[in-house]
């Protein structure tokens, strides 16, 4: 609907009264207002490698689009995992004005340009298409640790081991690293952060007792959790997650800290308004599809769909938050 309205306005301005005066039949008018549609396969850039969480989500959206015939052309995922998303960001920036390139992003969308100002990437240039979900985080330990059943036990055990306590995560200055730093400073711990490649690997390190704790997304630990190999102690969400009713939020425990990871579709900078409106409409349909809703529920994803100016405002707010966190961590200077 959005695009039709927009098209009507544009046409009104462009053709003015001339068209109406010429008395063109209604049919021709409808023909001319047909909304913008992609004319060649759309490149769907993934900021991570094949087989990771973001990659899976993109391939899932690709299949929703194809299955429900939501678009006249195929969407083809392209992985650009280089430099914590730097490669993908630079690539998208270079596609200025291209209506056939979109990207799926995470929180490295904020942190990477902050940490590498030399890239010259300003996220405000990108076209805000749709936030598809917000992924959540919980603190996990192995179920073999019968002595750890809540955050207090965890703090006691981690304190006892000092910097011998291994926290596995997905990369330096990543979401996991920020959360580890938060826990260290909030509870006076000295946990050692060890970066691994990808959340699935991190989850496995915990289940195999090669790490003492992790701050995985629920989707990454779900398999092990259901098999009774790992357990969540508390979550970084505003309210308890339905899947883990017994795990409190950190807010309940008196640490007012909530953290999400965005799962958002962005477009190349300078995309035409028509194309922007097209993708916003398309991804709203994907968001509303029963498949996506089922996926969100199963993976404990949260968040409403967000697009356009609202999404841009959200980005600016989140970027400011991340800047604060990175500065505190010492990863960037003022």
């Amino acid at each position, binding site marked *: 609907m959005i695009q039709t309205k927009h098209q009507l306005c544009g046409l009104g301005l462009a053709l003015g009264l001339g068209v109406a005066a010429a008395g063109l039949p209604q049919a021709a008018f409808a023909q001319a207002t047909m909304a913008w549609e992609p004319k060649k396969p759309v490149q769907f850039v993934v900021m991570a490698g094949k087989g990771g969480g973001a990659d899976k989500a993109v391939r899932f959206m690709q299949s929703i689009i194809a299955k429900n015939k939501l678009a006249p052309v195929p969407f083809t995922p392209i992985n650009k995992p280089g430099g914590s998303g730097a*490669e993908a960001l630079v690539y998208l920036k270079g596609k200025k004005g291209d209506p056939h390139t979109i990207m799926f992003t995470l929180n490295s969308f904020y942190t990477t340009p902050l940490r590498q100002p030399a890239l010259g990437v300003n996220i405000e240039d990108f076209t805000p298409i749709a936030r598809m979900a917000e992924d959540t985080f919980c603190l996990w330990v192995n179920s073999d640790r019968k002595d750890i059943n809540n955050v207090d036990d965890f703090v006691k055990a981690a304190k006892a081991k000092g910097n011998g306590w291994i926290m596995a995560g997905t990369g330096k200055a990543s979401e996991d690293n920020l959360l580890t730093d938060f826990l260290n400073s909030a509870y006076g711990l000295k946990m050692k952060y060890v970066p691994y490649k990808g959340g699935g690997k991190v989850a496995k390190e915990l289940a195999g007792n090669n790490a003492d704790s992790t701050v995985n997304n629920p989707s990454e630990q779900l398999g092990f959790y259901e098999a009774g190999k790992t357990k969540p102690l508390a979550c970084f969400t505003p309210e308890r997650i339905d899947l883990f009713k017994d795990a409190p939020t950190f807010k309940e425990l008196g640490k007012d800290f909530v953290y999400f990871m965005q799962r958002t579709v962005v477009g190349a900078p300078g995309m035409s308004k028509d194309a922007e409106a097209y993708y916003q409409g398309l991804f709203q349909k994907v968001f509303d599809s029963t498949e996506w809703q089922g996926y969100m529920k199963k993976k404990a994803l949260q968040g409403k769909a967000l697009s356009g100016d609202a999404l841009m405002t959200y980005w600016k707010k989140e970027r400011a938050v991340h800047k604060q966190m990175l500065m505190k961590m010492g990863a960037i200077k003022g």
Partner: protein
Amino acid sequence: MGEILTLLWGGFLIAFEPLNLMLIIFGCTVGLFIGAMPGLGSVNGVAILLPLTFLVPPTGAIIFLAALYYGAMYGGAISSIMLGIPGASTAVATTFDGRPLAKLGMADKALTAAAVASFVGGTISVVLFTFFAPPLANVALRFGAPEEFALMLLAFATFVGLGGDDIAKTIFSIAIGLVLSAVGLDIISGEPRLVFGDIPGFMRGINFLVLAIGIYGIGEMLWTVEENHKAGGKSMMSEAVVTVERTLNNLKELLGTWKTMLMGSFLGYFVGILPAAGATPGSLMSYGIAKQISRDPDKFGKGAVEGVVAPEAANNAASTGSMLPMLTLGIPGSPTTAILLGGMVIWGLEPGPLLFTQNADFVWGLIASLYAANLFAVIINVAFIPVFIWVLKMPFTLLAPIIFLLCLIGGYAPTQSLHDVWLMILFGVVGYFLRKLDYPLAPAVLAIVLGPLAEPALRQSLLISNGSFEIFFTRVYSAPIMIAALILLALPLLKPLMGHLRRKKSKA
């Protein structure tokens, strides 16, 4: 045991439903061609065809993709043998002896050996998979960074002596491969490194395929252009012919390699199970060990059938093995299974320890279809051998441009970036010049595969242990692997020393 057989029988009933059977045959055939295309390989094949699978029920979908995976593993050997270009990292070791055999006019022998070895490796591993899945999953789970590093060191160690006669040049080749493997991002510190000229294409690192297609594709072809020029335009890729008699003889000769096949199958399966290792280290180690235990190790690299059999048995066995951590732990044992995992999400299945009980139909249908996929893949593969041989007999000046075309597109397809195509041409030209000066290049290609697995594992281990190397020797699984690796590494140094001592003794 009886229970497993009942479940397996149920699986066969599923696999032989008409739709599923068609999917197996279709998947094997498509896989064969995708695998034979330099640059595509099973990873890209599975990724590309994943969206097609929503048309069929989940069991049919995984059966199709598993058949495709298998077909691609068979197909990978084809371009390794015919063109000397490994279609995927899993097929690198197959080029070492497959290509020399083809050059000697025995491409048919090499192709038959690859097909049969793949079949044996695949079948043995599926049997192992059927009966010993859950206990092995627990071993895989215990495998952490120290064990991974020990395993990589072992893979390197089995390769000592692979290089040429000049030790300095061999070491150079290994080192340059390892340095190039470090390009991109240092995951431990999160900092970019070796991003030459700040070109964004280097941020993702240097893909193994770019180096392999560059050296084995472009470089090798330039070399052949030179040979062809010197031979007055008469040379052919291979002069093999296919007759029933030759094929029977080939098969008879293969019977003699049963030990190598068994070794490759078991080794490949167990290495394949280990998370993140996958089929590549498995096939390399299998080749290395086959050479070490061979009665005639000097024949390796010059056209030994065992040199084709060992890696091919291992890489197919490993591709089955790598499904084990995928199904039971929800973690990928190889890049291809990482994408299959994504597929399971699309189909609404939750991989993990409970999959075997909650979705028994799916699991056993898949296992049964692996038996069937093996059988069909070997039949289809053998049936196509005469076609491949016919292609090789085309005049060089017609075949060469097609191979160059495949290289250019194969270099582009995985990342869809022209940066990689330029890099590939650069590696090809430099590789050609280096090769003319007897620099062995296979070690560089191996190093770029193993480097990105070895370095993070080493540094993660040291982070965990606070910088102490003891960690490698105090853990149950890493200690024996590490010791084996160190002994293998020391052997080439000890051999001359021992010989020296013996001579001294006999003199005395």
